[in-house]
């Protein structure tokens, strides 16, 4: 049955997350935006202390999406400081064995705060992840990793804090193309893995975006995710690459959920400000009678809703164990672009209030933009949607 009613648990999850960010994110939002690379230690400790209270539990389902929207309504940069298995965990869930999940994530919740990261992008390759040049060489009971990874979200925290992990994508056989691309779990503190630098960014400044260097970094053979064999003969056997893509089907809706959280923060600010000025948005009034301002706000709200429903659908499908590759990319493409436009329009509408660093709106505009870039740019996601609706391979539509 088509239904949009939230369960009592979901309503509660939203309420708790909302209170959490109102108390802990919003008051420090501006500070950590202006003090890039400083760690919000109090917040991390508090988030870690509450990890078992289900305040911040982040899965890959509808409830998680609702919670993430709320947390990013608070602050998307600070959200990305919250300890947890993160994208590294998502990769392990998507293509690891039960034993690996147990080994890498089983005790993730214990002891000190931990982070999981995924290292894919390199200086010479971004969205074309099949062009990865980092290498993994099989040597006895170990893999030896070499290469440079950039733009690793959580990179510093995951690589340096004990108990953390980084999932690294590397090729075991360059001549095999995509089939040679595999992912490897590198535990924090492994010799040969080091954090080279932290990026200075347009937005989400509280989030650490790091360059990681792998220099003869040795890890146990069992740390490979998926099948270690390279099947060169059959071109359709590109399971390693598909592992990466399956991860994206799970993480793209999550990024979409983050996006709509930022978008709603901007929308709420606009509506609250208008309300204070005694301006109400009239719904159900003929278009020719609406003011330009009302048209703008209605368009922003409709786009927020469109992005949100596409996001919920893609996560609901995942919960139903239905393939959601198309729907995940639809949600990500729509949400990234929608909130980019919503936040930019909000700054425009609010005039001096929008442009001033006295308020958070200009920051949300900067924060929003990353959602149209990471986990596949808007254009890459459009390409995926186009291939799917046309039933075209990557060779038929480049």
């Amino acid at each position, binding site marked *: *049955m*088509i*239904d*949009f*009613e*939230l*369960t009592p648990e*979901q309503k509660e999850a939203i309420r708790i997350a909302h209170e959490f960010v109102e108390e802990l994110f919003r008051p420090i939002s501006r500070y950590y935006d202006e003090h890039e690379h400083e760690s919000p230690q109090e917040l991390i400790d508090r988030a870690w202390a509450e990890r078992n209270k289900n305040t911040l539990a982040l899965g890959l389902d*509808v409830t998680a999406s609702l919670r993430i929207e709320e947390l990013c309504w608070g602050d998307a940069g600070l959200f990305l400081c919250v300890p947890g298995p993160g994208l590294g965990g998502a990769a392990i869930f998507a293509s690891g064995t039960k034993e690996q999940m147990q080994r890498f994530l089983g005790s993730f919740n214990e002891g000190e705060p931990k982070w999981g990261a995924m290292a894919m992008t390199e200086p010479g390759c971004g969205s074309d992840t099949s062009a990865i040049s980092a290498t993994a060489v099989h040597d006895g009971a170990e893999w030896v990793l070499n290469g440079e990874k950039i733009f690793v979200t959580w990179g510093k925290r995951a690589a340096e804090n004990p108990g953390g992990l980084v999932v690294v994508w590397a090729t075991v056989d360059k001549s095999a193309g995509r089939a040679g691309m595999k992912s490897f779990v590198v535990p924090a503190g492994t010799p040969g893995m080091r954090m080279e630098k932290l990026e200075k960014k347009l937005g989400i400044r509280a989030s650490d975006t790091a360059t990681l260097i792998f220099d003869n970094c040795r890890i146990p053979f069992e740390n490979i995710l998926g099948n270690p064999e390279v099947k060169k003969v059959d071109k359709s056997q590109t399971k390693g690459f598909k592992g990466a893509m399956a991860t994206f089907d799970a993480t793209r809706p999550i990024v979409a959920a983050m996006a709509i959280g930022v978008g709603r923060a901007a929308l709420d600010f606009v509506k609250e400000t208008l309300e204070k000025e005694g301006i109400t948005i009239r*719904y*159900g*009034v*003929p*278009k*020719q*009678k609406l003011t330009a301002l009302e048209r703008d706000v*209605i*368009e922003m*709200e*409709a*786009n927020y*809703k*469109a*992005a949100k*429903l*596409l996001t*919920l*659908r893609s996560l*609901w*499908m995942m919960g*139903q164990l239905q393939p959601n590759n198309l*729907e995940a990319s*639809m949600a990500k*493409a*729509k949400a990234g672009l929608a909130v980019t436009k919503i936040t930019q329009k909000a700054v425009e509408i609010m005039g001096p209030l929008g442009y001033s660093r006295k308020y958070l709106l200009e920051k949300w505009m900067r924060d929003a933009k990353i959602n149209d870039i990471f986990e596949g740019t808007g*254009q890459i996601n*459009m*390409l995926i*949607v*186009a*291939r799917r*609706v*046309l039933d*075209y391979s990557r060779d*038929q*539509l*480049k």
Partner: protein
Amino acid sequence: MISFSPTEEQQMIVSMAKQFANDEMRKIYRQCDENGEIPDSVIDTVWKMGLTSSSIPEEYGGPGGEHSAITGSLIAEELAWGDLSITMHILCPALFAYPVLEMGAETQKKKYLPLFCDEKYKAATAALIEPRFGFDPYSLSTTARPDGDGYVLNGEKCYVPLAAEADLLLVYAAENGSSQGFIIEKGTKGLEIGEQEKNMGIRALATYEISLKNCRIPKENRLGGEKGCDFNRIMNCSRVALSAMATGLAKAAFEYSRDYAKERVAFGEPIASRQAIAFMLAEMAIEIDATRLMTWEAAWKLDRKGEATKEASLVKAYADDMVMMVTDRAVQILGGHGYVREHPVELWLRNGRGFVTFDGMAIV
């Protein structure tokens, strides 16, 4: 709990509507558009499927199914994929029947609902739109003035589908400034049906101007009796129905232009393998899905009898823009071929342009 899966019963009705749209509507829609009329036989065939009567309770002669805006939206989308004119014709009696079913006084239900449970198509309609710039459903120029034991109606209406053949008209008019519905039976003195209108699109749907000149009706013909009707809810039901139809029509244009783009070869490969074309199609697909989901959400609100004005008007505004974007691009993708009447996309563009005007011309 959030779910995007129609019930089994809904899936059954949807596949029935889909089959009819594909087997019947798609065969004749061009001819209907050119001739400006729809063969009665097609209307009779679909009427027998009972789409309008299915939710009329047994006590009024219907099968007593649940009345659901979600189900109505699912059906409307499938039919509109087939053809918009024929869809609006088929669903036209609902413009009268559904408001009576939902808000009518007991005597009105008893009197009128059984008429829609007949084997034979029952033409009935509603008149809302007025022929002037700045038309606003909440501020009608047509007036209903209480006078003794009845009402006297005066004003002009346009875009009244099937007005000439309809036995029953539900006319919306301002009573002390607020919009209310009034039932006018065919032949009532003061009701004049004008010439059939000539429109840019929906050319197969017969629409008329009507004028009301001191048209006197009995008091009991006020929709909902003394209580009146929830006009805003009627508008929301209309917004949802039109959004669903816009989704179906856009889907038709998307599919056609997608298939064309895969067939049409330029510079040695199908034009679909160029990003300029492929990205247009991707965006069309995304916006169609987004509009459908927003339609469902608004319909869901209506089914829970909640206040749905925000959701319904947001999706309607969104759908109006979406259907223009999609149908215009469909024409663009076909290039010169899109402009000629050998292909359907020009027809869909003309029909798509109408949604922003079609207030109150469909209902779930």
